[in-house]
């Protein structure tokens, strides 16, 4: 007898289902089930993955959901056809929108009008009918069953029977069958599956425990009452329902009616308004031709030929892939941004397109960099997405434009499936398993390598066998939970826009913002469906560039346009080669800037390479080291196979850009470029699962067919696999490089305006404001303190110097700054009483203003102002009563006190470096300065000290941490002497409480590699604590 499971929860029934959709389908295939239904709780998030994997396993997918009704009861819905899918998505949407986030409740009467194309099953024990029978209310059960039969039609409504070997299952089944007969509908068996295999119950219990924040042993009634909720064979189900064979055969009957599958291809886009009688393609052509003279002002006839050919080539593919309205939609967004003078920059693979370049969507000329359009769009790959960065402060204007233009029902954000990570979930799992609290804090530190450390930890935990087993479960569960969906979040910028309301295509959920919705598919699902999104992203560097240009215009009247900017200024490249890049987009990080003196960039293409190198993909694949060895002539440029030369020549034989994966697969294993791109995308997925093995087998076989040795093929595939985690497409890197150059050019020629814009848009880039201020000071720019009569809300350029703004005074906030500016008007504050009366700021905020020196111009010592503040406040607040001022002889703040106070309130000192204060004492302690450090020899033991600038523990660094200290000599020389410290996991763990302090001293050994100096830390001290102990 055949059986089809019609009630299956995957792990997209968040914190309830305990198997990936792929595992369920794999098991269904093993059991020879012809079809399988996916019926997650109130969502269709797993539908695309389910559909894709179903093809792989040869099991026909059936789509559905278990809907939560307004009274909390469940109802199972299965999709028969396209109308049914639209109705299911609409119902899930209605249920999601009617309840708080994370819950769903379908409003009463919402089913009416949305039942076409759906088959309904009465649901699990939480279904209204079984629940009524279980509480003995047969009359209610009958009424509900009759209502469902009326709503869906008798042929589309089935009474659902379960037998999980619970004590009262048989009795409930008998009652349900009788009820079905009474109403005149049929019944069907399901197993309400929550995991693929019978041993999945432990993980399911754990998920429920995580959901309810309880220990597993505390779950009680929340725990499933038996271990029978796995995908069973037809034989097993037949035995369980031996008295009701119709219940089994009806599963097949229902499955036969459910023939819907998701259709791959770009979604229906809204039709862009076109000039009369013109097609979208013709309009695109017209726009491109009109823009040629602006984008290519001095084009030779030969170049013009190439431009025209490229335009026609792209337009033909755009037409084939039905992407013309998508292009126009994105063009509309960019035009809106231009009209509103919002800075933007198109990037991603869309920068491969000359049409995008001519429509001013992207800044990259693909002809100049020989960029292949098919990386973005091809009949094979179908559609690609445009990623556009906007000034982050003005991004909401773009989003509002989208919703206004297309309607809130037609535009929604893309979801982000938040998943468990094996290591980060350890603590949560440990709690649920009842592992003692005091053992938990050491977990992550101890569990560096799973298998080895579990043995060690079980020993630490007491060594009893029982505890050992619990620890083993911890590791097993952590491994199993890795990549498990946990809940739905929002993609950071992806929007989908559709012609019909979105809930016709996919269910949506509300976000925290009114009238903002998120679809239940993530970017992988969107990509697999062939849908397109527009990534509307915020990028702080654009705020910095926009503000710099605005300030230059306000200050000098000069309106700078980047349209005619040539990207070849030697002064800019000289600055980059010196690693003088603080505040420069992408190149200011420690890792990036350390490479620049080696790389010595001289042209725009060098910038493209520089920013492509420091990415997880190239780092893990070992590209960075190999690239520099080759660049510096320490290693010859070689290829694992001669056929890879064309693909990898531009990056000296290393794998650097995404496009190269497809080119390598094409050259070595005979893949089409489209297949190569598909492989790259598959390997980069969060849940690549068995896809990796499939691609590997295809790759190795393809390479073997071309006479490539097994060893070389495996080596190349391993490189590709490691690389797959994250790397730039070349076009994207080129688009980013435009911003790198623009920001570097502004820093080079307008350093004060640029530094001000950086300070006003923090956090931007790698460094904090203290480093930006020090860098400006190093360039001879005067840093002017906050002044209650001269500062504005933000920092500003004043007589060539930088006047710090109220935005740097702790606790003042925008409101406090606005109050001061409004009260001041054109009349300066004359003393503290005047200031207090006119601003009425809270005393704590005025204290901070005093402490940071904002009232220095009255020539009253800060300590005295602080003393007076209490009296002034009392006088003003108590109806002007005159107090006799108590005269106290207060000593002025010492320089050390002043520096520490400024550091506390502003985060840095405007006129001195805090380390200068400690210098005499540090000299006595044998501390080496940053300036002296460059003369130290490799391996020399040193003690250094400074202000902590950055502490990083990147996930790619195997537990190593990177600390950067700065002392006062950083700011006085022509070059940078930041002190870079490498901290091993062992040293980090030993000093984890100290390492985040602001002032640190480090004992360690010098490691010199060319001009790069690192200190390998051996011991770390809290400098402030040591200084206090020595009364410094």
């Amino acid at each position: 007898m055949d059986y089809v499971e019609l009630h299956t929860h995957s792990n997209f029934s968040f914190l309830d289902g305990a198997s990936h959709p792929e595992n369920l389908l794999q098991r269904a295939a093993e059991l020879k089930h012809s079809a399988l239904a996916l019926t997650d709780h109130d969502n269709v998030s797993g539908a695309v993955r389910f559909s894709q994997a179903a093809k792989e396993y040869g099991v026909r997918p059936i789509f559905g959901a278990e809907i939560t009704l307004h009274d909390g009861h469940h109802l199972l819905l299965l999709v028969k056809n396209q109308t049914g899918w639209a109705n299911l998505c609409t119902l899930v949407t209605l249920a999601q929108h009617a309840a708080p986030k994370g819950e769903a409740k379908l409003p009463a009467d919402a089913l009416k009008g949305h039942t076409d194309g759906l088959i309904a099953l009465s649901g699990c024990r939480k279904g209204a009918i079984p629940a009524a029978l279980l509480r003995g209310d047969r009359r209610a059960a009958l009424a509900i069953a009759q209502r469902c039969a009326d709503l869906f039609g008798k042929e589309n409504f089935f009474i659902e029977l379960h037998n999980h070997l619970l004590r009262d299952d048989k009795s409930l089944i008998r009652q349900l069958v009788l009820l079905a007969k009474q109403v005149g509908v049929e019944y069907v068996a399901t197993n309400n599956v929550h995991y693929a295999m019978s041993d999945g119950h432990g993980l399911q219990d754990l998920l429920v425990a995580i959901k309810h924040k309880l220990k597993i042993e505390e779950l009680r009634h929340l725990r499933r009452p038996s271990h029978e909720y796995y995908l069973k064979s037809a034989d097993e189900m037949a035995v369980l329902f031996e008295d009701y064979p119709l219940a089994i055969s009806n599963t097949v009957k229902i499955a036969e009616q459910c023939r819907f599958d998701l259709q791959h291809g770009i979604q229906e886009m809204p039709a862009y308004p076109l000039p009369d009688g013109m097609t979208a393609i013709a309009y695109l052509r017209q726009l491109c031709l009109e823009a040629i003279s602006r984008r290519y002002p001095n084009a030779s006839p030969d170049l013009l030929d190439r431009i025209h050919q490229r335009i026609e080539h792209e337009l033909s593919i755009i037409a084939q892939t039905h992407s013309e309205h998508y292009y126009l939609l994105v063009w509309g967004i960019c035009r809106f941004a231009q009209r509103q003078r919002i800075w933007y920059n198109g990037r991603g693979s869309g920068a491969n397109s000359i049409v995008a370049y001519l429509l001013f969507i992207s800044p990259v000329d693909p002809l100049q960099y020989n960029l292949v359009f098919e990386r973005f769009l091809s009949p094979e790959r179908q559609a690609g997405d445009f990623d556009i960065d906007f000034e982050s402060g003005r991004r909401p204007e773009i989003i509002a434009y989208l919703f206004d233009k297309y309607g809130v029902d037609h535009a929604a954000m893309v979801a982000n499936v938040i998943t468990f990570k094996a290591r980060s979930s350890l603590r949560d799992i440990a709690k649920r398993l009842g592992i003692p609290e005091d053992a938990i804090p050491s977990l992550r530190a101890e569990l560096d390598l799973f298998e080895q450390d579990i043995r060690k930890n079980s020993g630490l935990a007491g060594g009893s066998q029982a505890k050992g087993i619990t620890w083993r479960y911890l590791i097993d569960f952590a491994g199993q939970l890795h990549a498990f969906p946990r809940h739905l979040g929002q993609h950071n910028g992806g929007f989908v826009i559709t012609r019909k309301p979105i809930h016709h295509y996919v269910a949506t959920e509300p976000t925290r913002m009114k009238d903002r919705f998120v679809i239940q598919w993530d970017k992988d699902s969107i990509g697999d469906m062939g849908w397109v999104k527009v990534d509307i992203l915020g990028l702080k560097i654009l705020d910095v560039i926009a503000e710099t240009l605005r300030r230059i215009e306000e200050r000098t009247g000069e309106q700078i346009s980047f349209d005619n900017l040539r990207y070849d200024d030697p002064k800019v490249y000289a600055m980059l080669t010196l690693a003088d890049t603080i505040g420069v987009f992408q190149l200011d990080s420690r890792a990036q800037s350390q490479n620049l003196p080696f790389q010595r960039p001289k042209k725009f293409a060098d910038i493209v390479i520089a920013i492509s190198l420091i990415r997880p993909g190239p780092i893990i694949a070992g590209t960075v080291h190999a690239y520099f060895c080759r660049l510096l002539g320490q290693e010859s440029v070689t290829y694992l196979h001669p056929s890879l030369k064309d693909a990898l020549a531009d990056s000296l034989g290393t794998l650097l850009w995404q496009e190269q994966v497809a080119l390598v697969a094409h050259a070595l294993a005979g893949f089409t470029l489209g297949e190569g791109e598909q492989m790259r995308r598959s390997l980069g997925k969060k849940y690549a699962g068995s896809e990796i093995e499939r691609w590997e087998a295809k790759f190795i076989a393809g390479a073997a067919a071309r006479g490539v040795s097994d060893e070389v093929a495996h080596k190349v595939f391993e490189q590709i696999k490691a690389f797959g985690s994250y790397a730039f497409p070349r076009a994207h890197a080129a688009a980013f490089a435009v911003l790198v150059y623009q920001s570097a050019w502004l820093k080079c020629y307008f350093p004060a305006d640029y530094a001000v814009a950086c300070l006003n848009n923090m956090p931007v880039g790698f460094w904090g404001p203290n480093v930006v201020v020090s860098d400006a000071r190093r360039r001879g720019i005067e840093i002017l303190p906050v002044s209650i009569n001269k500062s504005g809300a933000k920092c500003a350029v004043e007589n060539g110097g930088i006047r710090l703004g109220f935005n740097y005074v702790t606790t003042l906030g925008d409101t406090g700054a606005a109050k001061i500016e409004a009260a001041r008007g054109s009349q300066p504050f004359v003393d503290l009483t005047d200031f207090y009366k006119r601003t009425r700021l809270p005393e704590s905020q005025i204290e901070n203003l005093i402490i940071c020196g904002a009232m220095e111009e009255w020539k009253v010592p800060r300590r005295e102002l602080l003393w007076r503040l209490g009296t002034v406040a009392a006088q003003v607040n108590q109806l002007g009563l005159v107090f006799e001022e108590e005269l106290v002889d207060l000593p002025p703040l010492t320089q050390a006190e002043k520096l520490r106070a400024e550091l506390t309130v502003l985060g840095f000192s405007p006129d001195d470096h805090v380390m200068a204060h400690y210098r005499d004492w540090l000299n006595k302690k044998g501390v080496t300065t940053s300036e002296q450090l460059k003369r130290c020899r490799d391996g020399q033991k040193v003690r250094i000290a400074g202000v902590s600038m950055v502490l990083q523990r990147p996930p790619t660094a195997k537990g190593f941490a990177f600390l950067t200290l700065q002392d006062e000599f950083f700011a006085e020389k022509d070059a940078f002497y930041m002190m870079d410290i490498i901290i091993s996991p062992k040293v980090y763990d030993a000093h984890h409480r100290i390492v985040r302090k602001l002032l640190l001293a480090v004992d360690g050994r010098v490691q010199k590699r060319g001009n790069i100096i690192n200190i390998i830390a051996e011991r770390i001290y809290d400098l402030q604590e040591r200084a206090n102990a020595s009364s410094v």
Partner: protein
Amino acid sequence: MTFTVPAEFQPIRVRLDEGSRPVALFWGNVEYPIERISNRYRVPSGSLEEPECHDFYEITTSGWLMRIYHNLQTDEWGIEELWD
């Protein structure tokens, strides 16, 4: 009336059919053919470290209604309750 069987008297032997269903039980030296299984259910218990699972059968034998159990970990059978 219900009679709960003391632990020391609970152990039985059981004869199974091809589908692993009990068809007769042996209590002491007496064989009780099972006339009907009116209900069967499964109860998981124990902990992660020491899991247990019992199948319970409500059966009719000559003159008795019984609830017997099968410990799936140890494969031991026993009588839990009798009704006359």
